[in-house]
């Protein structure tokens, strides 16, 4: 993993090269903008020299004033353009990072499902992406500042070499000091970011779990908990900010020394007439400017380090092994391949699972040596106690978690990319607690497939959702609120089923769906599902009703298949299954 990590400067360079033309244009514009104060400083010098009668140009006060007005007009014009270019450039870079982040979050297969709360991930989208963009953008200021400083030094050098030499040496010192402090900055910054993440994470969870909090009357406890996290964050943030201030002070303090040096050296020269008052003020004003530059350089150094931290954090959160993945050049508005494009595929005849294993990190739980076969039209019901590995089995087969070992064969050929294979139209899946999205019922069912291609009515009917839809205000167009909160638990479940059915998958995988459904609806749903002989079905259930219509029943215990047989055989031979059967509640009428 380490060899794929990028240094911060590499990452910044990489981002600059994304749209080099845009970057260079922006850079050129800001260089001009930065240079104008330098010209204004020079005009002031000429003005004072003019007054004291030592000016080397044949100019008048009027010309000085006209030049100032012209400069102003020029400046306004360039700034107008530069702001547009700059906004566009910033937008391009943050968007690229956010785009890659989002894509990564969508496509990754993670061992640690749910190890990062939504709040923390949203935080990284917002702040860490912004931090990287700042760093890239600030390089323009750095370039402009350096350019500015070089021009200033050249002008001053031509006026008085001694002063230039003695004043500008401290600047080197400043940069050195800033870099020395950078280790500390990195540490504080990391702490501050982490505690912010903890705070927003807990906050998001509190809002997600609002109902549990309310029914338990836990509001005050939660606030105390969040308050504590917030205090930790406050301490770390103040530390972080204070360190930045110290660095600033070190930088600006050199100004005071600089000024004194200038005045001391200049005193003699002014008295003997080798340095004019105008030239003295030029030194004073350029010194302030150039110090501001180096101060900015210090701030940038600190920011640069922080960017490294932000990027590492981001990469860790979305678990990329190659940093380039987050920086990949993408056409942001490139048409995204439609998922329904795959019209021809090898229709499922037989699916073979061989020796499939998955073990949870830091635990001896998981699934071990799973073997079974399912053919078109068949129904396999998986059953077992809580924690026996039913859901893990489904998730491993579907590639939602990465298998440790084993093979899966589709019509006899080995599947290399499991997660890419087990998607519609080959496979459809409904989890125990499905998620819906704040949109209309129709969009939730379609979720991207085109309306013309979809038999949405049929899917709604087969999901026993037709009556519910009729009773809704706007039928299929009814919006269901964030994550479907406006629907009942059973409705949510059936919308998810409809979402799966509308895709007409060859293989249907359903985790236990009885939790939110009443007997009547559940029975109707099973009947509809089992009557369809076009697909193969793998279903987790503990219902007698399901057992009776299954071709085979797989009984799981401790992550292993302890029986895989017909109902009648199991009732004779399998003790574990007999227990489950004895407690089963519903029967076929």
């Amino acid at each position, binding site marked *: 993993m380490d060899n794929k990590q990028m240094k911060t400067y590499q990452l910044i360079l990489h981002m600059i090269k994304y749209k080099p033309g845009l970057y260079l244009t922006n850079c050129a514009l800001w260089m001009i903008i930065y240079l104008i104060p330098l010209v204004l400083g020079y005009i002031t010098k000429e003005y004072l020299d003019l007054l004291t009668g030592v000016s080397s140009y044949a100019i008048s006060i009027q010309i000085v004033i006209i030049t100032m007005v012209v400069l102003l007009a020029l400046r306004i014009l360039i700034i107008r353009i530069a702001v547009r270019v700059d906004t566009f450039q910033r937008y391009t870079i943050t968007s690229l990072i956010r785009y890659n982040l989002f894509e990564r979050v969508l496509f990754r297969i993670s061992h640690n499902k749910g190890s990062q709360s939504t709040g923390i991930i949203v935080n990284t989208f917002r702040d860490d992406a912004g931090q990287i963009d700042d760093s890239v953008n600030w390089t323009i200021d750095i370039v402009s500042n350096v350019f500015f400083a070089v021009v200033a030094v050249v002008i001053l050098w031509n006026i008085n070499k001694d002063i230039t030499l003695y004043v500008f040496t401290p600047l080197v010192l400043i940069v050195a000091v800033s870099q020395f402090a950078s280790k500390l900055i990195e540490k504080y910054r990391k702490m501050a970011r982490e505690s912010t993440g903890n705070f927003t994470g807990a*906050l998001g969870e509190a809002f997600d779990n609002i109902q549990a909090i309310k029914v338990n*009357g*836990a509001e005050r406890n939660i606030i105390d908990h969040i308050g504590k996290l917030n205090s930790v964050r406050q301490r770390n*943030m103040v530390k972080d900010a204070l360190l930045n*201030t110290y660095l600033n002070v070190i930088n600006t303090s050199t100004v005071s020394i600089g000024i004194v040096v200038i005045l001391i050296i200049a005193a003699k020269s002014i008295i003997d007439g080798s340095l004019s008052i105008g030239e003295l003020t030029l030194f004073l004003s350029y010194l302030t400017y150039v110090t501001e530059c180096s101060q900015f350089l210090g701030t940038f150094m600190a920011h640069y380090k922080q960017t490294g931290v932000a990027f590492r954090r981001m990469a860790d959160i979305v678990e990329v092994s190659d940093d380039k993945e987050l920086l990949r050049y993408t056409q942001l508005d490139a048409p995204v391949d439609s998922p329904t494009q795959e019209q021809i595929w090898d229709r499922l005849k037989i699916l073979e699972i061989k020796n499939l294993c998955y073990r949870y990190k830091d635990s001896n739980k998981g699934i071990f040596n799973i073997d079974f076969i399912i053919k078109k039209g068949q129904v396999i019901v998986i059953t077992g106690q809580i924690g026996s590995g039913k859901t893990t089995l489904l998730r491993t087969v579907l590639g939602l978690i990465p298998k440790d070992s084993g093979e899966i064969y589709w019509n006899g050929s080995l599947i290399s990319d499991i997660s890419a294979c087990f998607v519609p139209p080959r496979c459809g899946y409904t989890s125990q607690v499905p998620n819906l999205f*704040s949109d209309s019922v129709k969009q939730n069912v379609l979720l991207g497939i085109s309306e013309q291609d979809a038999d949405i009515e049929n899917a709604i009917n087969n999901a026993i959702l037709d009556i519910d839809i009729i009773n809704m205000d706007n039928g299929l167009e009814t919006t269901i609120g964030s994550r479907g909160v*406006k629907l009942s638990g059973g409705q949510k479940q059936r919308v998810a089923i409809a979402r799966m059915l509308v895709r007409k998958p060859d293989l249907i995988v359903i985790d236990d769906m009885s939790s939110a459904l009443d007997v009547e609806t559940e029975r109707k749903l099973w009947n509809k599902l089992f009557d369809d002989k076009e697909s193969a079905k793998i279903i987790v259930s503990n219902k007698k009703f399901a057992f009776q219509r299954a071709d085979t029943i797989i009984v799981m215990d401790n992550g292993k298949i302890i029986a895989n047989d017909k109902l009648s055989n199991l009732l004779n031979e399998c003790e574990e299954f007999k227990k489950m059967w004895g407690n089963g509640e519903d029967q076929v009428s």
Partner: protein
Amino acid sequence: MKLSLKAHRQLLLDYWFPNKALISFLALTMFGSIAMELLNPQIIREFIDKASTGSNIIHLYYLALLLMLIVIAKQIFNVFSSYLSQKLGWKATNHLRIDLIKKLLDLDMTFHKESTSGELIERVDGEVTILFNFFSTFLITFINNFILLTGIMVLLFREIWMIGVGMSIFTVITIYVLNFMRTKFIDVWADDRETDAKFYGFIGENISGMEDIKSSGSIHYVMRRFQELLKAKLPIRMKAMQKNNLIWLFTLAIYTFGDIMAFGLSAYLYLNGIVTIGTVFLVISYSVLLRSPLEQIREQFQQLNQADSSIKRVIDILRSETKVKDGVMFIHSKGALSIKVDQVTFEYDEDSPVLKDVSFQVGKGRSLGIIGRTGSGKTTLAKLLTRLHDVKQGAIYINDNDLRTIAFDELRRRVAFVTQEVQLFSASLRNNLTLFDTGVADEKILKVIFDLGLNDWYSGLPNGLDTMMSPNGGLSAGQAQLLVFARVFIKDPDMIVLDEATARLDSITEQKIENALDKLLNNRTTIIIAHHLSTIRRVNDILVLEEGRIAEYGERSQLALDQNSRFHDLLRSGEIEEMLK
């Protein structure tokens, strides 16, 4: 939109002003810094005049040293004021954050249904962060900059009245223009923040629903929507930036004219022998120095502009009232509670009632089973009983007290609600069970874990009660459901509302907690909502809901015997053995 200054004042009074000591120190250090700033050009003027008239060089060295001291003093003041303003800003904003969180948690479920957690984080954290400056240095910077401005004016007047008058006019015009800009561009950032909130809401929701997106093969669809949202951001950001930029340009123009005036006037005075060249330098220095307070005032205005839309939304939240209001009553009698539902009608949206004219009673220690199809209003009824929503018509009474008059503390302590959804926190097992209540003894928690038959699972945990749980990982849905049960056991309430609570448990696990459940329901008033008849075999009464109305209501034993009852039908249709054994 015009945000009244009253709102700003109230926020400052409530969150900023209480930190009096910090504010005083901060004001002092900032003032010190200003004084040093004013002194600086005076010294250089002396230096220039002395140098150009060929004075003693030792004098010049002294002046240089004095200048150094002044600059160093200014730096020291700056460090302190930076530290103090950070501290002040954090204190005030965190105070506000906590108040917002309190408010948001208090708001009723109707509100929460409308908002994603990503959006709310943006409100509590994003928006408040924008207010940081407002709560750290805003007022002090304002006052100090006015002091600085006045100081410069006085010093200029002291030199030559003409310059003083010129610069005063310039300053007044500048302030006027800046203020005009502020009122004109008040809403520059509102749209931008709104699109941001939507954007992050979308991201949050889709991250939560990741697996559904994947298994629906809808990654591309979601990517497309993401692209659309990204695309929508640019024009809005561009517009805001450009408008905002106008303020900068205006100030640039004003400064240039200020410079021109200073140059012209000084030249006239110098060439007529009224002032020295040192004074010319002083006037130019002060006219440049003048920019700093004007600049800062402009910046404050600008940040206030950005803050305005945030302030508005923050105040909206602070002022919003939960529709479900806290009561004051306590129920004095100990033990099981009685509940009476009297002609209750309820709707989420106008004109589509979910419950219609529902009335029933459950006596102390008795139990009621509610059955019905999905969408018949069962869960809604449970939510009314536990005051997640308030009834629209009719009333609910606990021990003859209207539910709405009972204090939440009391209600939550005595009535438990086990919901369909299992909600866990990324926190320790202990905190997940006690919901961060630090007053629960470990022994009590362990006993509950034992009673629920979770000890095997518990002994496998690496850190016991301190083991970190995560909302989505590591636990099966059934185990998670058991943990939610444990919460109720720990709470030990007098009335329990179970909504599909055992639905996710397989039959063996369900068997395991039967005894525990019996114990829990014993001597407590119970309302059990179930799709599965087996879960209500222990109830006294049965209520059948159909499309929000009571279709049947009576004693379970009688209904079971009544050949014509719906309950009887249900029993006959498959579950009769289970029910009557």
